[in-house]
């Protein structure tokens, strides 16, 4: 392999891919980055065998080929180079850099020993607007479980694709987040993937929102999901398992509802939660006569009472929630008004933006607490 490239381009690509490299790996080649040069482009890849990051950059490729170099060493070296051009050549055991009057040889490992990614599975390729995907990720992954003991399935986010419709769902059993949007290019038929949430937050950070993101399933059993935007790609191993039937926890109909100022309610809940103390952060919401009364109390801290005016439909109701969960949800409602629907004090409540939001439809379901 032999390429001539800008030191800045290669430094930022190697730096970006290296983030995923695990310093404590027992497999030496996994502490390396793989550089592959072909067709005027170099792609840099690193993996911890769960998440794979790829970052490409344009370069003059004099001789196509690939090389693997220790990620930390190489990225630190590149970060310390002055702006300019450099020549990188690689063999199975050596990567050599010529830059101005300096020459460096790095020990390499054979590129064909780097774990390959599986091939693209047929018929499961779709594209989505970058902003929509990012909105969806932000709107859902916070609700996924972070308790390993509850299993990897609930720690993931469900991607349900049916034609051009994408539904993203995350739940930890107490709350559920759902985001529905449309794809640019859909698939024929339907697919379900459970994507580890960690990979999605990485995707939201790394893939630029301005572009179209191409998503492909890799491997014969849709083992990995690859999200590509421009020169960057994130590939993640999917969770093996069945996602629970989330439709079951969303009540089919509600008999009363309120419309409330989002930020006012967040303020009330945050203050009341301070008093609720350790009783699962329990706050009571009493709705009556176009007024919402938030109360909380504990033996240790005292009592709280707050009143907000709301638009009420249906009968009066008193219901209790975990304040923290409710605040988490309201923080993801971007409209000034929030609609909350109820079906009695012991059924889950549905929370959504009061006005439609461009790009996607959000729905949250929260289990009430027993009073």
């Amino acid at each position, binding site marked *: 392999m032999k390429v001539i490239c800008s030191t800045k381009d290669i430094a930022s690509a190697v730096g970006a891919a290296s983030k995923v490299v*695990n310093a*404590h*790996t*027992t*497999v*030496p*080649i996994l502490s390396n980055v793989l550089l592959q040069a072909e067709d005027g482009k170099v792609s840099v890849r690193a993996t*911890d*065998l*769960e*998440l794979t990051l790829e970052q490409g950059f344009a370069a003059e490729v004099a001789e196509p080929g690939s090389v693997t170099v220790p990620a930390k060493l190489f990225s630190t070296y590149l970060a310390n180079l002055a702006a300019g051009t450099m020549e990188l050549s690689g063999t199975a055991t050596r990567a050599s850099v010529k830059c101005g009057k300096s020459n460096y040889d790095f020990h390499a*490992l*054979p590129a*064909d*020993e*780097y*774990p*390959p990614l*599986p091939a693209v599975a047929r018929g499961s390729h779709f594209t989505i607007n970058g902003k929509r995907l990012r909105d969806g990720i932000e709107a859902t992954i916070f609700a996924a479980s*972070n308790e*390993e003991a509850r*299993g*990897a*399935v609930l*720690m993931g986010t469900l991607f349900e694709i049916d034609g051009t419709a994408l539904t993203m769902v995350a739940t930890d059993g107490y709350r559920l987040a759902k985001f529905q949007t449309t794809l640019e290019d859909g698939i024929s038929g339907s697919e379900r993937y459970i994507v*580890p949430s*960690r990979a999605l937050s990485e995707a939201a950070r790394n893939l630029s929102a301005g572009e179209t993101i191409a998503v492909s399933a*890799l*491997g*014969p*059993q*849709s*083992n*990995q999901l690859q999200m590509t935007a421009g020169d960057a790609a994130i590939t993640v*191993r*999917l*969770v*093996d*398992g069945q996602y629970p039937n989330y439709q079951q926890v969303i009540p089919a109909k509600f008999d009363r509802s309120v419309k409330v100022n989002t930020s006012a309610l967040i303020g009330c809940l945050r203050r009341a939660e301070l008093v609720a103390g350790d009783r699962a952060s329990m706050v009571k919401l009493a709705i009556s006569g176009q007024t919402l009364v938030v109360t909380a109390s504990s033996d240790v801290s005292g009592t709280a009472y707050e009143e907000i005016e709301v638009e009420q439909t249906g009968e009066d109701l008193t219901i209790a929630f975990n304040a923290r969960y409710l605040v988490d949800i309201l923080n993801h409602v971007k409209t000034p008004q929030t609609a909350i629907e109820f079906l009695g004090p012991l059924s889950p409540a549905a929370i959504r933006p009061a006005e439609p939001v461009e790009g996607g439809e959000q729905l949250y379901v929260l289990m009430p607490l027993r009073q």
Partner: protein
Amino acid sequence: MSGDLTFDVIGAQGPRRFFQALTRDTIAHAYLFTGPGGTGKKTFARRLAQALLCRAPGAGTAGYDGTCDSCRLFSAGEDTRNPDFIEHTGVMKIGDPDKPLGFYEGDDLTSRDLVRNLSLQSYLGGMRVLLLGDVSFATPESANALLKILEEPPAGLVMLMTTSAPDRLLETIRSRAIDVRFPSLAPAEIREILIRRGFDEERAALGATLGGGSATRAMAALDEEEESLRSQVAAWFFSAAAGGDAPEQSWATRETLAEGLEIVKTLARDWVALGVAGEGVRLSAPDYGTQLRDLAPMESRAAVAMLASLDEAQRIARSNVPPSLVGEMVRMAITRVA
């Protein structure tokens, strides 16, 4: 195509036939390889893993082609590994529940790491093999963490565990895996293994006799051989048998006397056997064959007397007599016949 497949193990004919009768579809999800240490259980498990993950047509329990993408990662050595083959040797710990999330394969793979890894799909899209060599668990919790995998294994997972002490495993683990017994290796098999590991013919033959059915023990014995008691005793023995001038009895100490006497007896018996039965007799210490043949053959009466004196020396050695005295007694018994 299956003509091009190999399954490179020495010995283990029984396990070989057992797995050949299975396919990727009929193979169970957990096996426990039992048998003495050094009989090739882990090697067999690695080959089986390579075969199950091989991408060549027809590959499976029958063997692997050695050249596909997957096989290349197996044969490349220590620097890499197949992402769908997880190997851990020794004690499994439960792992730290407070460890930050994210796929983490630290210096020490834990039960929690494993559970997490196995909750994801396979990396390359095929089967997955987990090898727990010399399996043992630090705590019952670390074993119980794996029970769920054993009870509801993810599709396409084969878990291979090896142990020379199956009784030490929790019954809950044992009962969920199929026992596959590995017999001791024959000397010829050990010889072949040693030759493949780069030992020359002569050393390999020696290792095969010293190994006692275990390749690991054979290699350990060869490593120590140079410095070993056996070579010290042998040097002393031949010097004494040549009637030399009272060689130093460095082996006759309180700690090594009993073992040293056994070695003297082995050599003495070989010497007698050569005298009585002549060439073609099977020696217990073939590596010293040349030197033994150089010794003068003895009369049978002298031979009986020497062996009797050695027995007597062994008896005295168990008493409070100074070891050097016992050594001297043995030297006299030997030089008398010589």
